[in-house]
Structure formats: structure tokens, C-alpha cells
């Protein structure tokens, strides 16, 4: 009969607490628990499997070496995402791929109209603009359109839609107010609708 290791049934917070108290086995359990989710996030955000693996390893190296800074009981998931996101941004910066904070970012943070434009656009729109695309072609089209978003919009789409995080956690990870998370998400969705409509028009020609 298989006997479950008690560590594997611990909550994330209990695991990190154990690790913090010196139980090193808990660290490996945490890495295994998050390898799919965090690697998927990094792969999607960075768009490069080698870089994603490197940043994943750096993330857990940080967890290992900075465990003393972890406040016992603090939710682990957003804490891991915060470290991973910072590591990813550093990696992009080292590669010269990090986009500077732009006036555009200031503008998106500052207006509240994106949702209204988005709702108007969806209200007046005809059939699904990507209905002609299917399967792999559709997937590639969608991924390419997300990748073309500025980093600060792409990040929020990935965290909210693909990673399923709460607004509050995203706000903590990105160190921005919850209201900014919402406006960025609305702006990102508006741009995606515009991109998909453009793709549809192009296909019709």
C-alpha cells in the first residue's frame, strides 16, 4: 500500500513554514507542486522555453535563499508569482527586451474609458471575427496577438485569464492598485478585439 508523504498533503503555506523551520524536503515538494503552473506562466510571458526554464530555476533559487524573508502564513501563490515576475523582468532587461515604461502606459493607467469602448465594440460587432480560423491556426493567431501586447498589458491578461489569479493578487504581484489592474485588463481586451477584427478583415480580402 502506498503511504502518502505528509508533506504532499500540506498546504503551500504549511510547506513553506516547514521549510523555513529547516525541513529541507519541503522545498522539493513545493517546486514539484508549482513546476507546471509557474513554468507555464513564464513560458507564456517570456515566449521562450529556455529563458522560461532559466527564470523558473532562478525563482526557486530565490525562494531557497530568501526564505528568511517569507512571513509565515502569507499566501504563497502570489508570493511565488511576485518573485517569478521580478525574475522574468530582470531576464528581459538583461536581454534588452524589456520595454521602457511609456507614455502609453501612463495613458492606459489614467483613463477609465476602455471598458466603455470595449462594450460598445462588442455590442456593435458582427459574428466572431476569428470564426474562419480553427485549431492550430486559431491558437497561433491568438498567442501572437497576446504576444504583441505591450508587456504591462500582456502580463495582466496572462495572470488574470490564463493563470486565473484574483485581481487583488495581480495587484500585489505587479505592485499596482486593483483599479489599475482592471483598466489594464480592459485596455488589453480592447486591443485584442481590434487585432482580431483586423485579422478577420485581412482574411476576407
Amino acid at each position, binding site marked *: 500500500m502506498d503511504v502518502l*508523504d505528509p*508533506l*504532499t498533503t500540506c498546504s503551500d503555506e504549511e510547506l513553506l513554514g516547514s521549510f523555513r523551520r529547516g525541513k*529541507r*524536503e*519541503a*522545498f*522539493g*515538494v513545493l*517546486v*514539484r507542486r508549482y*513546476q*507546471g503552473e509557474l*513554468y*507555464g506562466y513564464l*513560458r*507564456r510571458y517570456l515566449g521562450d*522555453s529556455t529563458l522560461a*526554464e532559466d527564470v*523558473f*530555476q532562478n525563482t*526557486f*533559487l530565490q525562494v*531557497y*535563499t530568501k526564505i528568511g524573508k517569507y512571513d509565515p502564513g502569507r499566501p504563497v501563490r502570489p508570493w511565488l508569482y511576485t518573485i517569478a515576475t521580478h525574475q522574468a523582468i530582470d531576464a528581459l532587461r538583461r536581454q534588452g527586451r524589456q520595454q521602457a515604461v511609456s507614455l502609453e502606459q501612463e495613458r492606459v493607467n489614467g483613463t*477609465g474609458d476602455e*471598458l466603455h469602448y*470595449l*462594450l460598445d465594440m*462588442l*455590442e456593435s460587432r458582427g459574428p*466572431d*471575427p*476569428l470564426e474562419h480560423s480553427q485549431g492550430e491556426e*486559431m*491558437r497561433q*493567431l*491568438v*498567442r501572437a496577438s*497576446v504576444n504583441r501586447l505591450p508587456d504591462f498589458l500582456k502580463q495582466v*491578461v496572462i495572470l*488574470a*485569464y*490564463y493563470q*486565473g*489569479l*484574483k*485581481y*487583488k493578487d*495581480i495587484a500585489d504581484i505587479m505592485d499596482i492598485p486593483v483599479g489599475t489592474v*482592471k483598466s489594464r*485588463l*480592459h485596455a488589453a*481586451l480592447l486591443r*485584442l*478585439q481590434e487585432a*482580431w477584427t483586423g485579422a478577420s478583415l485581412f482574411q476576407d480580402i
Partner: protein
Amino acid sequence: MDENLVGYLLHSLDEKSEREMEAYLASSAEARNKLENLRRGLEPLEADREEIAPPPDLLVRTLARVAEYCSQTLPHAPASPRSGGSYRNPWRRVDVLVAAAVLLAAVGVGVSALAHLRNQAAPLVECKENLHQFGIALNAYHEQHHQFPDVSKEVPPYNVAGMFVPMLINAGLLSKDITVRCPGNGPFKPTPYTLDEIHAMSADNFALTAPYLACCYAYSLGYRDEAGYHAPSYQGAGFPLVSDRSPRDQGPGNSFNHGGTGQNVLFQDGHVKFMTNRSLSFDSDIFRNRQGNIEAGCDPNDVVVGPSAVSP
């Protein structure tokens, strides 16, 4: 309320906001219509929802990296470079494997993972052990001669960096069984000739032999100023003495010994550090002098560790 419609669709709201949104939707047909439009608008994203699988050995490689990091950063036992006492390498290959085994213990990966780990971590740690052996011998030599081996005293063309290995062996301070091929680069390979055999060689034969005397390792070339040439002598803990050799193409990157990721460097106090670049706080390139040449430094702080066949 509309500002939370997208969050409601994605389950990104907190519980309170979600309940408020449910009440709002129940009371407003217009809100329900907007929600349905947003749902359709988000639908294309679903096409790329498929989970991205991690590489199969990501877990093992991550734990190996952490174990390797531990092996490079644990504090070293205090040791005077010229104390004459025995030097204990504080973190050996077996320790890394034990540390990694502990990390792996609870995650259900077995012998194959440890084998993988061994393949990855071992060369770097074995190389460090090797450099520690050089460090012990070099410090003992300094104890006797008040400087590290001065290869410039050899008659040209025998005055090359790699001569420090046969000089140490000849002095009885280094075992002949030490490998001069970095374990990251291939199997054990001793330095090919004794000092006497080298001195009996023709210059042509020596030219063929010189690159293999220290093979994968580089040795400090000292420095030259108005007063003349100065062989390497103890300057401080932060000064490199031996390292993985520079890239064979003499390009700007790291040593090839560990796949271009960096180089192990033995410092004058006997500690070994894996450096991921070629610079020190006081010297921008340990493989070239300030004039960009692979020869003796231009001043005491201009460190150059040169490959086997290079003369100071």
C-alpha cells in the same frame, strides 16, 4: 458595477464583489447582455488555453541548481594561506549530492534523477576540488619561496604559464596524479612531462607540449612596471591565482570548460569561486591586461591568468 463584469467572468473578484455582481446581474437585463457580449469577446483566448507542459526534468535540474549554488556559497573555513596547516575543502562533490538527495527525497524522483544530477553538478565540483589541490600546493610553495612559482625564470621558450604545474610537482608539493584537464572538459589527464624531461626537450618539441602542461587551466602571469617584471606573490584574498582557462578562440566570453557558463577561479587565499563573468571589482578582465593583451598585467591590480602556452 460594470467595471467588475470582466472580473466576474474570470472569477478574479473577491467574494464580496462577486456576490454584489450576482445581485446586479439578477436585477439588470442590460448587465446580463453586456456580460454575454464580454463572454463572447473573450472566447478566442480559449484557443490558447491548453496547459504548457514543463520540461520533464525541470524539477531535478532546479534542485540541482540550488544544490550547486549551496556548494558555491557556503562559508569557507578560515585558513591562512601560508599557515602550513592542512586545508580542508569545506564542500565536496559528495556533499552536493547529499544536499540534493535531501531536496529530492520527498518528491518521488529516484535514482535516475540523482544520476542526472551527478552528471550536471559533478564536473563543476570536481574542478573546484582540483583547484583546491593547486591552492594547497601553491601556498606551500609560497611558504618556502616567498612568492608563487615564477615561470619567467625559465629560459625561453620554456617560460610559459603552464610550467607552474611541473614546477610544483618537481618541488614535491603536488601529486603527479592531479588532472590538468578540467573535469568539465573530459576524463583525467595528468601533466605530460616532468621538469627534467621538459628541460631535455628541443624547442620545437616543447612548442607542441606547452599547451598541455596546464591544459585547461590558466595561471597568474604577474605584472610588469617600470621596475621590471614581478612574479605573482601574495597580494590578498581577492587576487586570482589559477582559473579555468580562457576560451580557446580568445573571444570575450567565459571559459569553455563549463559550457561557457563561467569559470572556477582559485584565489590567493585558497578559496575557489565560480565566476559567471571575467571581471573583478578592480579589474575588468582576468584573461587580458589593461591593454587588451594576454601577457603580464600593467600594474599590481591588473590581474591576468594566462593559458598554458603563454609567456608573461
